[in-house]
């Protein structure tokens, strides 16, 4: 069995959230997907991707437009990937190990430089067996709540393979969002529609694959 691909490593953490830098430019997991941070304690932390961004490594630099045709940029400025990085943030929704997962805040934040992976199907099922994972997702300031919930619920739904859990999560969400019926309505109307094959957020260019 092949080792799961490393998505990146933790560059910032607290009890509620993780900031992860991708090992490959533009190789962030999808918004709303479940990730796992493997910690030395043996207890992994699980999160849902809430924001993905790419920008300069040096915060003082300003990215400017080069006005080059597609393909020309890569040829004329091959050093560019070394100046850029892709990061993403994840809201911690639970923790656990091989024996089980629970949707709750871990006792200690994840250590920096721990590697982060996409959560396995079984782990997602363990985390979402009860609807508690939804509560932290509704408490993120400035997040596009409806989109985040749609993406996270869709990911969890795919892990379970049925809509049975979706109804249960929905009933819980209806209580969490009792003052925001419009969002609830939007989430479940979108989840009720057939899933279209959307293009990736941004396809990584072949030679941008390595950060250095």
């Amino acid at each position, binding site marked *: 069995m092949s080792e799961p691909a490393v998505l990146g490593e933790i560059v910032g953490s607290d009890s509620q959230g993780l900031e992860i830098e991708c090992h490959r430019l533009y190789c962030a997991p999808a918004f709303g997907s479940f990730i796992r941070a493997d910690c030395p304690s043996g207890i992994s932390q699980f999160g849902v991707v809430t924001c993905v961004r790419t920008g300069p490594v040096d915060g003082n630099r300003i990215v400017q437009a080069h006005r080059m045709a597609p393909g020309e940029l890569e040829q004329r400025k091959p050093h560019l990937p070394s100046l850029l990085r892709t990061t993403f943030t994840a809201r911690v929704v639970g923790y656990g*190990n091989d024996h089980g997962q629970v949707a709750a805040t871990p006792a200690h934040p994840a250590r920096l430089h721990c590697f982060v992976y996409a959560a396995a199907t079984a782990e997602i099922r363990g985390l979402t067996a009860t609807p508690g994972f939804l509560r932290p997702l509704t408490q993120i300031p400035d997040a596009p709540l409806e989109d985040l919930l749609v993406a996270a619920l869709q990911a969890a739904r795919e892990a379970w393979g049925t809509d049975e859990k979706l109804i*249960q999560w929905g009933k819980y969400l*209806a209580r969490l969002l*009792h003052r925001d019926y419009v969002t609830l*309505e939007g989430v*479940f109307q979108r989840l009720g529609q057939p899933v279209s094959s959307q293009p990736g957020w941004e396809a990584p260019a072949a030679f941008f694959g390595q950060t250095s």
Partner: protein
Amino acid sequence: MSSFDPFEEIPAASPGDLLSPQTQADLPVGSAGESLGVIVRGSLSKGLDLKLDPGVSLETLRAGMFAVAGGEMFDFFSLVTDLELTATNPEAVDAPPPAPGSLLRQVLAGDSLYTRAMLRPHLMVNRAEPDAKKALLPVKTIPGHFTVVRRATPEDVNRVFGSEEQSPYHFHIGEPLEMDEIPVCLNLEAFAERSNGIFGKSGTGKTFLTRLMLCGLVHKNAGVNLIFDMHGEYGWRGTDEGRPGGSTKGLRELYPDRVQVFTLDPRPTVKYDREIRIPYSFLEPEDILSLQKVIGLTSTSAENSYLLQRRFGRHWFARTLDMDTKEVAEEEDAHQGAMQALRRKLGRLQKECSGFLWPDERVVEDAIPLVLRNLEQGIHTVIDFGRYSQLIHYILVANILTRRIDEQWREKSEQHFSDPDRHPRPPRLVITIEEAHKFLEPGIAEQTIFGRIARELRKYNVTLLVVDQRPSQIQKEVLSQLGTKFCCLLDDESDVEAVLAGTSGSGGLRSVLASLDTRQQALVFGHALPMPVVVKTRSYDEQFWKTVGYLPPEERSARAREDRKRLWD
């Protein structure tokens, strides 16, 4: 990996399910015993709020059906009194989700949008008490939050209402709503102890219900019946539009040895046992008072009859018809106009009742003592009015007969109380009157024998079975004395109000009463039942007749032959 202990798996359940302390049995939806939901709020005075489980179909619930809230110590037997669609989030109602079956609808159903059922507990059953009778208690407390409520089972109905096998006086009157084939029994001994009422608007089945109860009283020997049969429904034959020929068996046909029919209108086409002829001297001023509205007398004129009785004695009626009103008014210092009006109205009465109200010298056989003897011997008696079915005839005859009974029963009861060894108590007598409000309306009830019976004759073993469609017209005091009430559908608000006055939890029963079917359904409550119940009343048909002891003539003859043979062999 460390030996991180897995967290206990949290059961996958809806929030509503998590509230339920008991696991639902694997029962089909709508079946007896199925869990309906949990109590979420309530009070002793207003009843309980049941939040329905999402899986329970609202349309399987009916106002008036039974539900049992299983508290920690007691089972609370309750009636569903109302159903309500409600929402925790009003916006969900304002912007209804799209197509049925959509994800959003499924999400909202049962939680954000849910159904409340209002329950009125009427009886507590102590689960720790082995004696079934002692276990039934009046409701003095309520079950706590999240108490599971379930549909009643046949065992529950049996536990509360008893069964015909358990007691000789329990009589099967029908089935609870949504519980076919499960008998609800009424204690006829308790029923006959007090005056009772059968109410409902026209065409709701009062007559069938009355026949049912009369058959029960005869079959179970719970009392002897005197029935004033205004419309010819209870004697030999009765009407039943649903049967071939439009007629059905009367009590006389069902119980040929135990019932007799006395008629005011002997006619060749109708069977009867005796004729009734009433001599003038049987009339008393009280009869005129009770008729004052029917014959259009002022109260002054009606009260003059007392004056005339004092003047002329027991033949006052005959003498009044011939008197010189001017002379009598002057001598008695009475108003001549009132006296003239009285004579005129008595003349009308005599004319209208001339078929059975005869001068004393014409009456050869006084049937009234025969009626009384019958009743004393336990022979049920039906007074058939035949063509004399106007109110004037009915009220007059019922009054005259009942007054005589009253005198006799009082006398015999007093004798019994003073010397129980020598004088047996007279049998328990149930007098059935239709259009009862004509006898018992305010202003009349105080002066007629029926008002007195309803109020105070229970101790003399005489009670009334009042059949009426306008209970609001009956005097409140009389209504309050009725022990058990059968209420078929009533539309008029004042009638509903009158029937339920003084009943515990009447608010809830009002909505139950309003939701009854127009036929064969009745809300029954009062002394003879431990708690109110809506019943689909038994059908008055061959099967019923068989269960109440009817034998077809050929079978009766065969049995008689067998008995004779056994006697001589």
